[in-house]
């Protein structure tokens, strides 16, 4: 990245900074130390957070419904405890399930446990109305066990809800208290489930459990992946510099920047989300390049015979500007993610920008301050020089070939981009959070079992506000529920309507023809009063005490946001048609709607953030190089990169999720660096009087190897994410790593060819 300061616009500030750092290195080192000491303690405050609701913007309608369910109906966060066994109705298994149920119900944070041995029922028998548990006590004799098995498996309220149709799996739903420490509650449930292994194979699902798994694995990823990224960086630096300062300074600068950034994250009490978990690898991979450029230039000047401090002045004064441009374009790319409507992506945007800025500041202060104190001579290494010459020759030859065949290169690039674009049209957004996990993992498996055998893990929540005991309102609710049941993948629709129908039948001796709504308002109010004997919990899950707000729940046996979108459309039409002309207000929410809101927020804001990033880097390049043509040309490799990145995603069937949603803008932000390096170097060669094929050869010959090494280093840094425990992070790492390949090829081939050999030679070589 060597640049002549006299050829760069506006380097005065950087030159002055270089002089100050060279004169007072201790002052800058003390400053870096002071900020580190001040911010480091806050990085210990970091807390992982994986709640999908916290990703949505405040005021999202799905959140208001969830808040209402929390405040009025005791919440909807349920941990699904799946028990697989040979026979649920075996005596030992029933006892074990009962014991597990009791142990779960006693846990702090657990409001209630719904299961075969806790489920309440209202039934009629002669003149008696019996309000009791379905299984008051576990029967011990085989005949009663067999009778229980037959009765439960014949009843649609239990079969496929709490017991699988074949009787080999049972489900316990532990509802958490709103506002409780969900992580602690789920951890306690995991512990209790582990202690009750005799019930069968126990696994957990439900959003609080999945969130806990994601949080745990995110935390373990943070601790596991960062050292590997650092190791990759150390190896890259060792191969590049083979000196202690060449390894330790860029690494130290980026690690200090990381401590400062995470300190600010902790200071502002921002959670570490699934998106923020990629921040450390991103910062280390991207931010280290700035220090590398400074060290490279300092070594170059030292080889030319400059002393440590003059070399620092030149390194900061001349290399500072291209490094600034690289930083500014990366900031533009990462910063454009702030336009996304997802809170965790916006937080990532802010802190990645801050982290990149810190890396830049430290590369221009901390790194040269230490270099100013290095007294050791820098000598050429003969083997390295020869190796470098070969690399440069190869790149120069490629530059010459690309110049001579520029039409072919551009045509090939356009053809690849066109093919990729066709495949990119198949890319879909998908915010199903079970996809965060690897196929075959415990959470994926448990989710599949709940979906296939128990009617689904996610629950739609419908709120009906009005005079609920009005027979007309109840009748509409009944019609609405019947309509819901006809929508594919919707199962287990339930509300106070079902409770009243069951009670009506029970009050009338259990006669099936009375399994219908009571006919009058008084009868409804009186049944609700009767049900109050069974405790308010029985009713309060579905209707408020003043009978003004009712809740309808419906499970959904799929998780994909595309499936949810289809169902949501039908639900909204059904809701509008059923309650038209009524005075009641209706609303829909629940986890499927939160997932859908996330899906729509990504869809609606992703393109905007990529376009913003493109416009920002265009303006930066055009202004700093004072040339509109270069601004447009710099976009060429980026557009190629975007087309190929999304084309590969489309061809591989990968989906845009909450993390890969940032791929486009990150690709712009990092990938533009290669174009900037190439353009800056080409300007230097032009200024030196070269043109035509020679200009192309010299440009590629000098900057080509640096671009390849940079892309390899960043790509390798990101590919470390493939060791993540979470599938979503693995995909992101590999996609960004591949993006580095596309953008470096874009710069070295397409941009080189597009720029051609135009230029006015000032001096013949």
């Amino acid at each position, binding site marked *: 990245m060597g640049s002549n300061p006299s050829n760069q616009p506006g380097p005065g500030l950087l030159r002055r900074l270089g002089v100050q750092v060279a004169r007072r290195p201790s002052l800058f080192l003390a400053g870096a130390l002071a900020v580190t000491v001040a911010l480091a303690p806050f990085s210990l405050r970091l807390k992982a957070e994986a709640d999908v609701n916290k990703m949505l913007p405040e005021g999202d309608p799905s959140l208001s419904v969830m808040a209402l369910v929390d405040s009025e109906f005791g919440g909807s966060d349920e941990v699904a405890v799946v028990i697989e066994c040979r026979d649920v109705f075996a005596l030992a298994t029933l006892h074990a399930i009962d014991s597990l149920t009791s142990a779960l119900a006693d846990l702090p944070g657990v409001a209630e446990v719904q299961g075969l041995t806790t489920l309440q029922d209202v039934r009629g028998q002669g003149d*008696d*109305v*019996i309000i009791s548990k379905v299984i008051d006590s576990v029967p011990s004799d085989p005949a009663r066990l067999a009778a229980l098995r037959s009765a439960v498996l014949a009843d649609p309220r239990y079969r496929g809800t709490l017991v699988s149709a074949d009787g080999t799996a049972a489900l316990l739903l532990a509802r958490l208290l709103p506002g409780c420490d969900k992580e602690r509650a789920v951890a306690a449930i995991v512990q209790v489930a582990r202690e009750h292994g005799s019930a069968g194979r126990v696994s957990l699902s439900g959003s609080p459990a999945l969130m806990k798994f994601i949080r745990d694995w995110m935390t373990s990823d943070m601790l596991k992946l960062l050292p590997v990224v650092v190791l990759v960086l150390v190896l890259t630096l060792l191969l590049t510099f083979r000196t202690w300062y060449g390894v330790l300074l860029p690494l130290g600068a980026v690690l200090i920047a990381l401590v400062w950034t995470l300190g600010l994250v902790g200071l502002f009490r921002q959670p570490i989300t699934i998106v923020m978990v990629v921040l450390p690898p991103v910062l280390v991979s991207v931010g280290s390049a700035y220090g590398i450029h400074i060290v490279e230039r300092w070594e170059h000047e030292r080889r030319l015979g400059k002393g440590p401090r003059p070399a620092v002045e030149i390194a900061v004064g001349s290399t500072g500007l291209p490094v600034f441009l690289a930083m500014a374009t990366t900031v533009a790319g990462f910063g454009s993610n702030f336009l996304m409507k997802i809170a965790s992506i916006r937080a990532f945007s802010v802190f990645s920008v801050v982290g990149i800025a810190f890396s830049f500041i430290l590369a221009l202060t901390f790194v040269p301050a230490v270099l100013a104190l290095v007294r050791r001579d820098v000598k050429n290494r003969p083997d390295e020089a020869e190796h470098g010459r070969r690399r440069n020759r190869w790149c120069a030859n490629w530059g010459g070939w690309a110049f001579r065949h520029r039409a072919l290169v551009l045509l090939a690039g356009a053809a690849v981009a066109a093919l990729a674009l066709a495949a990119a049209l198949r890319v879909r957004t998908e915010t199903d959070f079970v996809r965060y996990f690897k196929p075959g993992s415990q959470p994926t498996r448990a989710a599949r079992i709940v979906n296939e055998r128990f009617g689904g893990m996610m629950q739609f929540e419908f709120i009906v506000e009005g005079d609920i005991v009005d027979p007309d309102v109840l009748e509409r609710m009944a019609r609405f529920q019947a309509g819901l049941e006809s929508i594919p993948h919707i199962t287990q629709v339930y509300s106070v309507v079902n409770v009243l129908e069951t009670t009506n039948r029970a009050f009338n001796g259990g006669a099936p023809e009375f399994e219908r709504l009571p006919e009058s308002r*008084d*009868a409804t109010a009186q049944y609700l*009063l009767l049900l109050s004997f069974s405790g308010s919990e029985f009713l*309060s899950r579905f209707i408020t005490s003043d009978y003004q707000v009712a809740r309808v729940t419906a499970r959904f046996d799929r998780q994909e946001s595309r499936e949810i979108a289809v169902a949501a459309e039908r639900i909204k039409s059904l809701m509008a048609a059923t309650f038209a002309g009524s005075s009641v207000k209706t609303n829909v929410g629940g986890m499927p709607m939160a997932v859908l809101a996330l899906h729509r927020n990504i869809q609606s804001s992703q393109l905007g953030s990529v376009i913003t990033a493109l416009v920002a880097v265009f303006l930066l390049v055009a202004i700093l190089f004072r040339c509109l043509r270069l601004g447009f040309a710099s976009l060429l490799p980026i557009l190629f990169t975007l087309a190929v990145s999304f084309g590969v995603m489309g061809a591989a069937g990968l989906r845009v999720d909450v993390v890969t949603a940032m791929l486009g803008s990150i690709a712009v932000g990092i990938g533009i660096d290669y174009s900037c390096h190439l353009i800056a170097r080409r300007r230097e060669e032009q200024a030196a009087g070269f043109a035509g094929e020679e200009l192309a050869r010299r440009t590629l010959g000098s900057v080509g190897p640096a671009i390849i090494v940079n892309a390899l280093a960043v790509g390798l840094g990101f590919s470390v994410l493939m060791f993540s425990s979470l599938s979503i992070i693995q995909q992101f790492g590999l996609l960004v790593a591949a993006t580095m390949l596309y953008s470096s090829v874009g710069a070295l081939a397409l941009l080189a060819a597009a720029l051609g050999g135009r230029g006015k030679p000032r001096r013949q070589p």
Partner: protein
Amino acid sequence: MKQLLALLVVANLVAALTGSEVLDRVRAVTNAKDRQATAAMTITDKGNRVQTRALRTVMKGDNKLMMTFKSPADLRGVTFLTTSSDNMWIYLPAQGRVRRISGSAVDQGFGGSDFSFREISNLSFADNSATQPAESTAVDGKPAWFLTVKDKDGAASRIWVEQARYLPLRVEKLGADGKAKKRIEFGDFVNRGESWIPVEITIHDLSRGSRTELKLDSLKLNTGVKDGYFTEANMKKGA
């Protein structure tokens, strides 16, 4: 009167009582052969939504109780009857039928309130026994006994009893974890003959965040209510 009360207090301090003795004295002063009253029930849920209900109650001994709703209009005439802890009936005017209610889950709440039927019908701690010696303490500046009791099912409660008159001041129902689940506060006792009856009772469900206030009016004690009063026919008449 004040001197007498002071003497009683001093006497109590000198001769500390066992928990059972305190409980016996509470039963003695709050006991009545029968009682009739109208009651205003105000239920306030955790969202501060308020519902009011008017009832007429007739009670004999510790077991026989008939309660009839007078308002709101859609509940008017609904009547509950219990003659023992296992026998409970309900009359719903809209259905014109009386049904016996049974099962393990019937004693969780009454009329949407925070009272269970047992709590509302047994305010004299008839089936409770003290598990520890009474401790001397104070409630709102009044000298009080503090004792821990258990009912016949083993559920524990903490009771604070005014030392001067042996009137219950506060009860906390404890869960299996030993933490208070419900708190009952007694206020404004009226004296009829030898009995002191609380006419204002507030119950707080501490886990749900709701509360129910019960105010008794037109209280009559020991009027000679017959056993034959507690019948299906009288339920249908609306008591």
